[in-house]
């Protein structure tokens, strides 16, 4: 293999790649600056604020994103991908208690990390079909996770009870439900987790014997 490689690299390719890499890195830093500002203050940051935080000029932002909506969409994609990567499904084959605790723990962490971006996303979705689509996908992902984690219990229900159960579970573990427990009711992280653990256990039908 090595013998067929050119002895010296083409002068053109590395320059283009390097430029592209730098541009991608700049894009990434702009997205991270946007997300950092949103976490500090859940309002849409201005282009000037984002540029200042990222250490670039406003012009640099608009060279990489045609408008602030495109930046919001890119930041949302990044935020959702990060959330998915940090929240893999665990203990899918565990007993009921283990599955509930595992799902609640994962969801709680996602909510803690993601509330600021989620609020910005919800407040801006009416300005952009792309953002609306991402809100929908995020909800579908949550529902798919609930279906996976509580498959044994859900399998005992017919329709529409199964659908209704998923709707209720999704409402219960909504990100704003978590935020209210933490911000409005002042619950510590572990107590908020217990609220979900206790109430999901009450909501779910009995586990079939083989999965207890």
């Amino acid at each position, binding site marked *: 293999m090595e013998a067929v490689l050119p002895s010296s690299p083409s002068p053109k390719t590395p320059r283009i790649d390097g430029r592209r890499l730098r541009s991608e890195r700049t894009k990434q830093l702009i997205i991270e600056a946007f997300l950092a500002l949103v976490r500090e203050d859940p309002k849409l940051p201005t282009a000037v604020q984002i540029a200042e935080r990222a250490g670039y000029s406003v012009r640099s932002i608009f060279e990489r994103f045609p408008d602030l909506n495109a930046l919001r969409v890119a930041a949302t994609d990044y935020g959702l991908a990060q959330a998915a990567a940090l929240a893999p499904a665990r203990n899918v084959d565990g007993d009921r208690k283990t599955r509930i605790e595992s799902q609640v723990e994962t969801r709680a962490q996602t909510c803690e990390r993601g509330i600021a971006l989620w609020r910005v996303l919800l407040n801006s979705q009416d300005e952009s079909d792309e953002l609306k689509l991402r809100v929908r996908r995020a909800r579908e992902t949550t529902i798919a996770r609930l279906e996976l984690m509580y498959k044994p219990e859900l399998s005992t229900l017919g329709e529409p009870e199964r659908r209704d159960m998923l709707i*209720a579970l999704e*409402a*219960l573990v*909504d990100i*704003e*439900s978590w935020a209210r*427990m933490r911000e409005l009711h002042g619950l510590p992280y572990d107590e908020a987790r217990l609220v979900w653990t206790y*109430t999901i256990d*009450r909501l779910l039908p009995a586990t079939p014997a083989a999965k207890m």
Partner: protein
Amino acid sequence: MATTVADLPPDAASPSTGKSERIDGRHLRSERTKRLIIEAYLALVRESSPRVPTAAEIADRAGYSVRSVFERFPDLQALRVAATDLAITEAKANYTPRDLDADRATRLRKQVEIRGRGCDQWLPMWRVLNANSAGSSELQDRIRLTRSLVLKRIEMVFQPELSTLSEADRSRTIFAIEALTDFESWARMREFFGLSFDEACAVWVRAIDRLLPPTPDNAS
């Protein structure tokens, strides 16, 4: 647009004879104008939520000038606060808990229907309220007040069942019912899952019934 005699309350249309009546008549007209401006704002919010209506749109809908709006409300934030207060007052009056002594199924069904109707009616206003609450302690206070009213109502309606739980489990159950019956939970059932009013009510009834412990014998 100036207020015409036809717009005035009956008392204000008759000629005044004394200073206090004159003042009262002016006051009444001003209050009526305020009310009409607030109602115009609420109507526009229902049509275009979460977009906030402009002063020109509000004035146009109410049939007054923009100047009239700002003579009565120093800014649009003050108008939002007044509209929220009116909404809370109306919601409290319309959704007073009834049949608190009824059996579990009746209390559950009535609570869910009342809450569902309230969500259908006030969701646009709720969204505008939340979208504009950042930086406004007055609006944040009203959001807190609305939530505390919902919590109190849950406690009142399901008192027999909740009374059988330990303090910790009681709080957990109340928080869960509040989350389940949140405005946006209702909105998702109606907008995202496309459920009818009755189907959405059925989801809540089933879920709350599962969340609640058995009703004590003396209250079932």
